[in-house]
């Protein structure tokens, strides 16, 4: 079993799994308690536009993904909150528009794009050293921001109206939360892909919320569950020769079903 670590890509894969579990457990906790899974799915899919742009202009698509997801977070926050447009409808539009833009850019770019599928469904074999460093930096950004705003995040995700009556700038906190979701999505894309990101952000916290007594506990449980699902998923994808992203999601769903039928 140790022999699989003799491949560099497997070591990178496990490092990526740790990074992904950390970000997804912490931010996924907010996604689940604030019930913004759909928004998260929308932001995730818009990154395809950025990835396509990366291919077209020849820069690392992951930077395109960062740009697109951050832009999507701003759009949802500004139009949805400040201009009072229906968030639900906005998400539907940017979701499809991002995907269409990605396909359009890739059509325009020359030559063969072999790892395009990997952005949609994830491919652990393609996690590079650079990706690991980007993931590490983004994780630090997430940890620091959550640490500094922990109380306000709790106030806003628990009871927005009361937070507003207390004079907390709810719209700003919500925007910061959406930006952190955008950053988390970028961390997860290489591992599970755009389409499956939503599962990594929602399944571990959905299990954790059953047992947690506080937000902090829910985060810790989510991170641990994420690690478990990631590693079991990676092992099975390696030995059974399956796609890493799909394996991780399968294991996560099995985990969810077990917790569902288990009495609290």
């Amino acid at each position: 079993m140790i022999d699989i670590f003799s491949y560099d890509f497997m070591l990178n894969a496990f490092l990526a799994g740790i990074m992904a579990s950390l970000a997804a457990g912490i931010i996924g906790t907010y996604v689940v308690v604030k019930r913004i899974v759909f928004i998260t799915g929308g932001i995730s899919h818009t990154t395809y536009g950025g990835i396509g742009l990366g291919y077209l202009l020849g820069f690392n698509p992951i930077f395109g993904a960062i740009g697109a997801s951050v832009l999507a977070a701003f759009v949802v926050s500004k139009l949805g909150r400040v201009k009072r447009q229906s968030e639900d409808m906005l998400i539907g539009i940017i979701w499809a528009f991002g995907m269409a833009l990605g396909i359009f850019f890739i059509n325009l770019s020359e030559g063969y794009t072999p790892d395009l599928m990997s952005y949609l469904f994830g491919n652990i074999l393609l996690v590079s050293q650079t990706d690991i460093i980007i993931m590490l930096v983004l994780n630090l950004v997430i940890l620091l921001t959550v640490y500094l705003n922990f109380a306000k995040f709790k106030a806003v995700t628990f009871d927005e109206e009361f937070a507003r009556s207390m004079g907390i700038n709810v719209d700003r906190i919500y925007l910061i939360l959406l930006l952190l979701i955008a950053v988390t999505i970028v961390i997860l894309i290489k591992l599970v892909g755009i389409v499956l990101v939503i599962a990594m952000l929602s399944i571990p916290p959905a299990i954790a919320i059953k047992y947690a007594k506080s937000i902090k506990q829910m985060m810790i449980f989510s991170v641990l569950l994420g690690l478990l699902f990631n590693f079991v998923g990676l092992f099975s994808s390696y030995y059974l020769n399956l796609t890493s992203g799909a394996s991780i999601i399968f294991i996560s769903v099995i985990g969810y079903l077990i917790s569902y039928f288990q009495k609290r």
Partner: protein
Amino acid sequence: MKAIEVNNVYFKYEEVNILEEINFSVDDRDFVGIIGPNGGGKTTLIKILVGLLKPQQGEVKIFGQSVSKAKNLIGYVPQIFNFDPNYPISVEEVVLLGRLTAGRKSFRNKTDLKIVHDCLEKVGMIDYKHELIGNLSGGQKQRVLIARAIAVQPKILILDEPTASIDSRAGKNFYDLLDELNKEMTIIMISHDIGVVSQYVKKIACLNKNLVFHDSKEISKEMLEQTYQCPVDLIAHGLPHRVLDEHEHHHD
């Protein structure tokens, strides 16, 4: 100085006037009950007082200050539970949120914890301090939300329809609690329950787009008819345990 001064306030929602020409003032330590029909603008008025909505016209002063500057003078108890019952948060943590006034980053130093403890004691929920909020009954949740509001250490407590989710057994006790709190702060309360209002409050305001402020707690048939715009049977006064005339039930 007046606790609350409302001058010529208008509120429109999509071109429909919800509130028109609202004028009233409330003295410190007053206990005002606001009654009126559904859709009469009660919740809108409350939301303006706590700064959740801004009137298109007119001004509101809280102890001489604008609403946005008076955030820590007001404790707000919303009508419905806005939160997800599965949210993993203890009773103590919920009340601590009342200490998170704007500009504060940390909100759980020794003083905060002491204040939260005292507030929970006051509302009789100290034994549930470590319980998850979702495991409590409706009446218990309401008490926790009152504790959260008074943890702000406000000069004015504003409650939107507080009896809505309280069972009748807990009801009486609940108003004794408000009575107790009224010794320290001004209370504004919306209520459907006109009988209860007239027993406990000091003054009554009737709201149906316009507001009629009564400097006493006597409710007359005319007042109610004017507010509800339909004939209303006058409620029995001074009977603490029976608010409405007993209904006759026919069982076949």
